[in-house]
């Protein structure tokens, strides 16, 4: 019974979001647009039902904001790095595929993290190993030597830590060591 309620809520939220997008695309919230949006939303949810996800802990807004802020800065910096690589007179790319183990990953965490990595220039999620909770990331340029790979892995793990603080389960957050928890406590 409880499952039904959760499913219904999820569906209604989705219909609401779809109606909002519809109204946004038409550009005005006239009654006809709102009704049309709701109709399209219900139709889509009935025709193309999403797989329902099991509950995965709650999202912590402040920590999510921190994640988004860090990500935005990272995005700009990484863009400039790739621009520099493109404009370099002599190309020098040391490409690599790096394994990044994600601690106690839920599907939501893996999705958020994989997308953030793929959006950041210079890193691209190639493969997701769900059973082992590992992301395989293609890196445009790891720099010189074996420590380059470790540097890239460490920087991705920094993003992972922020993502866990934002949407991770309780136990994955407890798994973070040392200073990790301090940022997210409210």
């Amino acid at each position, binding site marked *: 019974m409880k499952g039904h309620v959760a499913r219904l809520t999820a569906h209604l939220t989705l219909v609401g979001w779809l109606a909002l*997008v519809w109204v*946004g*695309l*038409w*550009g*005005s919230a006239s009654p006809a647009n709102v009704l049309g949006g709701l109709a399209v939303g219900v139709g889509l949810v009935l025709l193309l039902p999403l797989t329902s996800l099991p509950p995965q802990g709650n999202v912590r807004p402040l920590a999510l904001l921190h994640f988004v802020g860090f990500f935005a800065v990272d*995005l*700009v910096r*990484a*863009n400039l790095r*790739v*621009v520099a*690589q*493109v*404009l370099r007179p002599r*190309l020098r*790319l*040391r*490409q*690599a*595929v*790096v*394994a990044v183990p994600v601690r106690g990953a839920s599907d939501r965490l893996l999705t958020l993290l*994989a*997308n*953030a*990595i*793929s*959006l*950041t*220039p*210079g890193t*691209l*999620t*190639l*493969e997701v*190993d769900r059973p082992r909770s*590992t992301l*395989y990331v*293609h890196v*445009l340029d*790891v720099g010189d030597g074996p420590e*380059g*790979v470790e540097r890239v892995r460490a920087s991705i793990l920094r993003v992972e830590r922020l993502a866990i603080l934002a949407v991770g389960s309780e136990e994955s957050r407890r798994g973070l060591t040392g200073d990790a928890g301090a940022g997210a406590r409210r």
Partner: protein
Amino acid sequence: MTDVLSAALLLSGVALALTASLGLLRFPDVFSRMHAATKPTTLGLLLVTVGAALQVDAAGDRVKLLLVAAFQLLTAPVAAHMIGRAAYRTGVGARADLVVDELGDAAR
């Protein structure tokens, strides 16, 4: 003032798109080209939408630009992931050029 700001945003967005196409020409294989072609254009598009949002008057048009940005952020990484994964699995992506390949090592 608004005009200057939005011009700066539009121009830097366009400059990023230009570097993206340069990278597409210069980079040697599927993976490096994916990096060049997909990411700077995403940030470039964001800058262009912000620049354009400063210029349009109707709130409805701003919402449309916001939707453009949101869907770009949602879809670009999925597309990049699918192409990269397919390229790796089919061997189109040159694995020999990789300095380190921990995915290949794990599969062995």
